[in-house]
């Protein structure tokens, strides 16, 4: 794993982030703006409603970090010839990929912690009922989104192309999963589509952890899908990694990205056929919002 270079590179990446004003805005301030928009506009300051909406806030935070903080950063460095500088070193792509995930994980632990602290200070919410579950889910969610972001970075050639694909994926993951429009208000058919999206499971699972409505052991298929997605995407992004803007991928190579969506595709089929997750999510919504 090349631990020392990975840790040192993670440390450097955190320092670089701290020196970059736009990165600070999008990684720290922007998610907090979301928190206050959700808290004041959607929950109207009600502590229990804000607590319920912390699930979507956390998911939006880690979703943005995974795609932009990890995936987009790789393309940015590739286009600026930064990756070329690392190429002669005897370490390969692993430290570059892992350090991006690690640095963003450290940052998001801080940001999500800050979000809960601010929510408690401004909206007087109770602390999460299952903080350890929340920590594990948030971490696995970030790893999965970051790995998906790395696959996107691997198959796109330019920053513009990456922006388009990241935005399309993010919109689907945000708007069809209950992370923005409440799941209970989505049309029936979209709820079934949501079962194919990792963000739906994360929103539900974080809300369930915050309210103590479900234990981790009842979410084994979702956790497995997150772990498998992370591993598959990490291996794919290692295989498809490109150091240089001049190195282009053929369509055949790009087809290697397809396995990235397989775990949640299979989970979606299983959940649509055998799981009661839709009703559980609706029940949790009704128990809090319409109490």
């Amino acid at each position: 794993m090349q631990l020392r270079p990975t840790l040192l590179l993670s440390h450097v990446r955190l320092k670089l982030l701290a020196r970059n004003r736009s990165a600070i805005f999008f990684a720290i301030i922007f998610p907090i703006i979301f928190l206050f928009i959700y808290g004041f506009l959607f929950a109207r300051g009600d502590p229990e409603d804000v607590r319920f909406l912390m699930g979507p806030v956390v998911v939006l935070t880690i979703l943005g970090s995974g795609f932009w903080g990890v995936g987009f950063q790789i393309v940015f460095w590739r286009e600026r010839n930064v990756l070329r500088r690392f190429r002669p070193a005897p370490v390969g792509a692993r430290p570059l990929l892992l350090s991006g995930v690690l640095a963003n994980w450290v940052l998001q632990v801080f940001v999500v912690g800050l979000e809960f602290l601010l929510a408690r200070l401004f909206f007087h919410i109770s602390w999460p009922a299952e903080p350890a579950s929340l920590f594990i889910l948030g971490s696995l969610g970030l790893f999965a989104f970051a790995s998906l972001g790395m696959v996107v970075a691997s198959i796109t050639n330019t920053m513009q192309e990456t922006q388009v694909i990241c935005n399309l994926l993010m919109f689907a993951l945000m708007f069809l999963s209950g992370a923005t429009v409440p799941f209970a208000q989505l049309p029936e058919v979209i709820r079934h589509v949501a079962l194919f999206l990792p963000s739906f499971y994360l929103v539900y699972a974080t809300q369930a952890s915050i309210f103590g409505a479900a234990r981790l052991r009842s979410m084994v298929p979702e956790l497995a899908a997150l772990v498998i997605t992370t591993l598959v995407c990490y291996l794919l992004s290692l295989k498809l990694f490109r150091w240089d803007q001049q190195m282009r991928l053929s369509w055949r190579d790009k087809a290697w990205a397809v396995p990235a969506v397989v775990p949640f595709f299979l989970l979606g089929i299983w959940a649509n056929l055998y799981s009661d997750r839709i009703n559980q999510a609706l029940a949790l919504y009704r128990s809090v919002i319409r109490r």
Partner: protein
Amino acid sequence: MPAARGFPLVMSNAAVIQVTDLRKNYGSLEAVRGISFEIQQGEVFGLLGPNGAGKTTTVEILEGLRARDGGTVRVCGFDPEVESRQLKERLGMQLQETALPEKITVEEALELFASFYGRRLKTQVLLDRFGLEEKRRSHYDMLSGGQRQRLALALALVNDPEVVIFDEPTAGLDPQTRREIYGLVARLREQRRTVLLTTHYIEEAEQLCDRVAIVDHGKVIAAGTPRQLVQRSQQSSRIEFVLRAPVELSRLRELEFADEVGMADGRHMIRSRHAPRTLMALMRLLLAEDNELVEVHVERPSLEDVFIELSGRRLRD
């Protein structure tokens, strides 16, 4: 062994870098067409040629960054394609067109890259050696072009390598920074490190390299020490001089090896394929006529002339 004019390129079995009949194609384009050469321990070897000649492709194959289509390559005893990792530990590389993150400091960059290697030089040693001490806390985007290049070279030496490969180390730099880089390469030679550099600057090859291979269209068209290449050239030297009393051009035309003579603005000019013999003959003529040489300037043919002679075009065409 493909025919390359001049000095033998393959010298012994103890070479640090051995390249035999190297070939690389990009689709239908033959970028490298059977290049062969050897570089000995402690030698500064230059690949000189115009843009697109195949120099960068060759060094990238040597560095293990690109797969070859034919031929054999050994660097420090390793095949770069198979033993890339072991080779990278012992090789220092400066690639063309690389950058660092804008907000990384010089010191952080050196420490970070040092962490990638088992064997490494101390950051302070590199800061001192490359004159970057004052800039150790400066962000990369605040460095000048020359400072960035010095940092790139320092990063290439961070693992205290046995062999260093510089790909166009002075391209786009101002003359002063270029001279600084020449000084750094000269110091590497003093330390008996093996250096391979690519360049399309004649003066760089002439000043820095013990031996040069001139590359064009993916082939070595001539090789040897810069002096040998120039001496073997059919190009003539230009002798320009001022006399106390002008002499007739017909007298100059009779001098040994004087191929062409002329005069403009009171200055005589002779083109000669053997400048020392022509100068001796000129001195004898002046003594016989009680004349005196006021000023003389001899311009020898350069590697550029050698390249033009062999390829029919200029290096930077």
